[in-house]
């Protein structure tokens, strides 16, 4: 018997999985570096975010939930900054 929370978990994790798959497809199929970077950041931020969201109802101690959110926050920060840095490199390369 699948409870409502389980259903929520599954939906969120499934959506996260979709974003990772989409990010990979983008990375492999998009024609130029900047659009590939665009695909990558979606997978980074939304994919992991949704997976974390889906896992939160499954944790037993609330501290673990905080840790999950911290993990997501760290990846958001580094993903965003790296995208900036790589984007600058690409823009300079094109000039």
């Amino acid at each position: 018997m699948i409870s409502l929370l389980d259903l929520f978990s599954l939906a969120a994790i499934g959506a996260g999985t979709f974003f990772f798959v989409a990010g990979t497809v983008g990375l492999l199929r998009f024609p130029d570096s900047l659009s590939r970077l665009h695909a990558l950041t979606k997978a980074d931020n939304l994919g992991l975010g949704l997976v974390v969201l889906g896992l939160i109802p499954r944790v037993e101690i609330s501290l673990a939930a905080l840790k999950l959110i911290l993990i997501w926050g760290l990846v958001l920060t580094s993903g965003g900054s790296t995208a900036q840095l790589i984007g600058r490199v690409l823009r300079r390369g094109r000039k």
Partner: protein
Amino acid sequence: MNILPFLDILLASLIVTVAASTVVARDLFAAVVSYVAYGLLLAFVWIRLYAPDVALTEAAVGSGVTGVLLITAGKRLAAIRKAEPEAQPGPALKWLTGALAVLVACALAAAILMLPDVPPSLAPEAVTAASGPGAGLGNPITAVLISYRSFDTMLEKVVLILAVVGVWSIGKDAAWGNAPAPLGRSRPSPAMVFLAQILAPIGTLIGIHIFWVGADAPGGAFQGGALLAAMWMVAMMARFDEPPRIDAKWLRLGLVAGPAVFLVVGLAGISMAGNFFAYPPGFAKPIIIFIEAFMVLSIAVALPLLVAGPPSEGYET
């Protein structure tokens, strides 16, 4: 239906593929990136082998800090790679080496498949040792590292110091005593500064946390020290801090603090508990944490210096 075996097989084939691409990739930089990916995947394998302590070490040292080291070197060397074609080995040598490699791998695989059914193990001894002088530690690995195999752990810190001295001695004589070249550009980009401002403080806390929980849970001096080292590197990349002059007193003290404190406590064990590296009963846990704290310091100082390289002539600060 059980999916876990399929996950294991997926992971195993991924590791082999990535290792193969490290070995056969045409492009030098591709090989380096493959290697870093390989380190990352290995951390996942360690999780599947119920070794979260090893996974954490592999993630922090094997993938994170090594990644910075190798990607920096690979990027610098990739430039000359194209200008200078190397003599490639002939087909006969290739076949011979391939046969040798297959032979070694098969022999090793056969040995693994024929391991005795009741495995010989030092675990009972280690558990006894850990429940004796290392009492109070919930993490048997930390107990083994600090108590049962304490000599290994101390000498491993000495290896780190030797490696740092080795790296320093590669620099020119005139540069001795100078600082290594900065890790970042003179005006770091805003994104880099932002990242370091967020990561460095949070990461320092996480590093200390992982060191602290290491007594009872996965984590410990190695992992915590490596994370702290990584955070110092981030700060240096954003130019919040500079690589220190290699003749700085505090730096050298920090480097030797870990093994020195370890050795002093070990010697004190002779008089207090009757044995070298024996901890007096009842005080084992605080003493172990005390030793570990200095080891964290030594690791956090040594790893960034290893990445920063030899002292440079141009930077006098």
